[in-house]
C-alpha cells in the first residue's frame, strides 16, 4: 500500500467490502503475521446515501420517515431522537403518556436488536443452532411491536409532538405476557453462554479492550459498558420518561467478547423490567400535541441511547418548515476506532466475532475523513471542498 519496505512474512487479507462475515459493506484491510493480526485499516463509507443533505430538502414531518430509514434495525430510536430534537427546536413538550409509550417501544426495539445481535454473534462463531433458536424467539418481540405499531421494522410510531398510536389495556396485557415468556427463553440462553464449552473457548479473553482505551477511543454503548465503564445516556442524561423509571446500567468487567454478550443479555432483562414498570405506571391523557408548521431559528442537540450506543442529532432551524441542517452521529461510527484496537494481536479466526461484537450497523455510518498513510496526516473535508475536489478529479479524466 504505502510502497515502503515490509517484511515478507506480512500477509495482507482484505476483508470486505463484500465478505460473508459482513452483513454490510466495509473494507477491513488486515496485515497478518502468521495467524496473528498486526494491523488493520478500516475503511467505511461504501454506503453514503446523502441522508443529511436530503433532510434539508424536506419538511419536519417528511424527515421523520427519512430518519427512520437511517438504520434498519434501530429505526425507532432514530425517530425518537429526531422528534425529540424537533420538539426542543419548537420548544414544545410531548404529553407524559407519549413519553411512556416511546420508552416502551424503544425498549422493545432494544430487545429485538440485542436478540438479533446475539444470533449473529452465534452465527459468526459457527454456532448456527443457537442462531436459529434466538431468531425464532425474537419473532415474539417482533410480533409485539407489530401489535403496538402495525409494523415489524419501520414502526412510524413517534411523531413530532407525541406518538401516533396508543397502547390499549389489552395490548398492554399481551406485552406483559410476551415479556414473561421472553424472560424464560432468555434464562436458557444465559445458561448456554455460561456453560457451553466451545462457545466459551471462542469468546473468553478474545477482543479485549481496557477501560482506559475504551474511554480514550470514545467507545459507546455496550462496547464501552463491557469494559466496566458505567456510561449510558438513559441514566446520565435522562430523556423521555427514563428519569421516572428505575433501572440498572448493565456493566461487566472483563472487556472481552464474553463481556459484550453478558452486557447485552443483562440489558435485555433490564429492558423487560423497564417495559413492565412503564406499563404499570403509564399516566393517562392525550398522546400527541400540536406543533407549529414553521419553526423559528434555533439550534439544539438531541441524544438517545440506541441499542448500539449513544445516538446524536444536531439541528438548526431557520424559521421555515424545513431544517437548515441536521447532523447525525451513529454509534457504530464512534466504535470503529475501538474495534480496531480490539482486533490487534488476535487470530484470523477471531476477525468475524470481534468485529461483530460492536454490533456494526454500517449503512448508518458512511462519513468522510481522510488519512494519508505515508505521513499519518488526517483531515476532514466539508461539502464545498469535496465538491471542488470532485470537479477537479472529473476534469482530469
Amino acid at each position, binding site marked *: 500500500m504505502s510502497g515502503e519496505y515490509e517484511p515478507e512474512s506480512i*500477509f*495482507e*487479507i*482484505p476483508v470486505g467490502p463484500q*465478505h*460473508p*462475515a459482513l452483513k454490510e459493506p466495509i473494507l477491513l484491510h488486515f496485515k497478518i503475521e502468521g*495467524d496473528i493480526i498486526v494491523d488493520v485499516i478500516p475503511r467505511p463509507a461504501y454506503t453514503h446515501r446523502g441522508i443529511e443533505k436530503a433532510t434539508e430538502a424536506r419538511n419536519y414531518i417528511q424527515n421523520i420517515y427519512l430518519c427512520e430509514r437511517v438504520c434498519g434495525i434501530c429505526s425507532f430510536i432514530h425517530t425518537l431522537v429526531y422528534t425529540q430534537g424537533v420538539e426542543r427546536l419548537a420548544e414544545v413538550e410531548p404529553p407524559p403518556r407519549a413519553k411512556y409509550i416511546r420508552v416502551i417501544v424503544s425498549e422493545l426495539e432494544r430487545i429485538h436488536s440485542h436478540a438479533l445481535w446475539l444470533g449473529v454473534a*452465534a*452465527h*459468526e*462463531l*459457527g*454456532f*448456527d*443452532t*443457537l442462531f*436459529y*433458536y434466538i431468531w*425464532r424467539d425474537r419473532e415474539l418481540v417482533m410480533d409485539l411491536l407489530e401489535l403496538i405499531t402495525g409494523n415489524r421494522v419501520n414502526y412510524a410510531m413517534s411523531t413530532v409532538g407525541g406518538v401516533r398510536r396508543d397502547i390499549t389495556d389489552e395490548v398492554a396485557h399481551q406485552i406483559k405476557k410476551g415479556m414473561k415468556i421472553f424472560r424464560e427463553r432468555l434464562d436458557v440462553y444465559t445458561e448456554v453462554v455460561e456453560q*457451553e464449552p*466451545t*462457545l466459551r*473457548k*471462542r469468546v473468553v479473553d478474545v477482543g479485549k479492550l481496557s477501560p482506559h482505551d475504551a474511554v480514550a477511543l470514545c467507545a459507546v454503548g455496550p462496547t464501552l459498558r463491557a469494559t466496566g465503564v458505567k456510561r449510558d445516556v438513559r441514566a446520565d442524561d435522562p430523556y423521555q420518561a427514563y428519569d421516572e423509571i428505575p433501572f440498572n446500567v448493565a456493566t461487566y468487567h472483563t472487556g472481552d467478547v464474553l463481556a459484550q454478550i453478558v452486557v447485552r443479555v443483562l440489558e435485555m432483562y433490564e429492558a423487560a423490567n423497564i417495559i413492565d414498570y412503564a406499563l404499570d405506571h403509564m399516566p393517562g391523557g392525550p398522546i400527541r400535541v400540536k406543533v407549529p408548521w414553521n419553526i423559528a431559528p434555533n439550534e439544539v442537540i438531541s441524544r438517545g441511547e440506541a441499542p448500539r450506543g449513544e445516538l446524536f442529532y444536531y439541528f438548526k432551524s431557520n424559521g421555515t418548515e424545513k431544517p437548515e441542517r441536521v447532523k447525525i452521529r451513529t454509534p457504530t461510527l464512534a466504535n470503529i476506532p475501538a474495534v480496531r484496537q480490539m482486533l490487534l494481536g488476535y*487470530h*484470523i*479466526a*477471531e*476477525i*468475524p466475532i470481534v468485529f461483530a461484537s460492536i454490533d456494526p450497523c454500517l449503512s448508518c455510518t458512511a462519513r468522510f475523513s481522510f488519512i494519508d498513510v505515508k505521513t499519518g496526516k488526517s483531515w476532514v473535508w466539508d461539502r464545498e471542498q469535496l465538491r471542488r475536489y470532485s470537479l477537479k478529479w472529473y476534469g482530469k479524466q
Partner: protein
Amino acid sequence: MVWETVAGAIELLVFPGFLFIFWLSLFYEWVDRKFYAKLQYRYGPLHTGPKGFLQPFADFVKLMAKEDIVPAAADRFLFTLTPIMVLALSLYALFYVPMVPIVRNVALGAFEGDIILVLFILTMIGFLKFLAGWGSTNRFSAVGSVRVAFQLLGYEIPLAIALLTAAMAAGTFNISLIAQKIVSEPIIGAALLPALAIAVVCFQAELERIPFDIPEAEQEIVAGWLTEFSGRRLALFRFATDVELVLAAALMAAVFLGGPYGPAIPLIPVQVSYFLWFLFKATILVLVLSNIRALFARLRIDQMVHLSWRYLIVIAIIETVFIQFLLVMGVIG
C-alpha cells in the same frame, strides 16, 4: 464361472458398487441436511421430490451444468486433478469396506491389510484438499489450505490409533474379517466403544463439519480451500464429501459395530439382512455425526490441534493399552 463374472460386474457397477454408492451418498446428504434442519427448527429441503428427497441430486445436476471457470492465476493441472482424485479415492476406499457383501461374503476388494490402505487414502484425501486450495492461488484458499494441513495433523493420528486398536483386538488387518469377528464376539465391540467415540470425533474433523469446519469457515475465510471452485469441480468436491460421509459411516459401522453382519433376521434371506443391518448401523452413525454438528460452535485451528494432541491421542493410547491388557489376560481374542 460366467455367473461369477457377471455377478462381480454387477457388484462393481450396480449393487453395492457405483450406482448404489451414488444414491446412498445423496440419500445420506439428504438425511444429514433434513435432520440438522429439524434440530434447528427449520424445514430443510422441501420441494424437490417427496420431502425434498431429490434436492441433493438436483443440486448436483445444477452444479454440473454451470459454467466451468479456472481462475487465471490458478494452477490448471492441480485445479483439474484434485476434484477428480478426491472423488475417485473416496469411491475407491469404499470397495474395501463391507457394505452389502452379497457375493463373496466380504467386501469387494477385501485383502489382509486393507485397513492400512483405507487409512492411507483418508490421509491422501486431506492432502489433496490442501493441494486444491494451494493451487487456486487465492488468499482465502491459502489460509484454508494451511488449516486443512493443520487439521490433518490433528485428527489423523488418533484416527489411525483408534482403527488399528480395533484391528489389534480382532487380530486381523482385513476390515471385513474385523466386522465378522466383532459380530461373533460382541465383547470386543463393547471394549472398543471408546475407540468408536474417538473415531466419530476424528471423522467429524475429516469431513470438515462443525465444530471442525475450520478449513472452510464461511464467516472467516469465505469458503476456505473451496473458495475458487465452481461448476463441475465444485459438484465433484461436494459429491466427494457425500461419498466421504458414506465412507465414514460404513467404515465405523464395519470396524466397531460389525457392519453388515449381524444376527440373522427370521424369514429374511441373509443378503437382505446384510442390507438392513448395514443401513441401520450406518444411518445411526450419520445421525450421530449430524447431531454433533448442531451442538457446538466452531473451534479455532490451534484449539482443535490442542484438543486432539492433548486429549484424543491420550485417550486413544489408553484404549490401546486397555485392549492389549484384555488380550494378554485372555478376556478377548
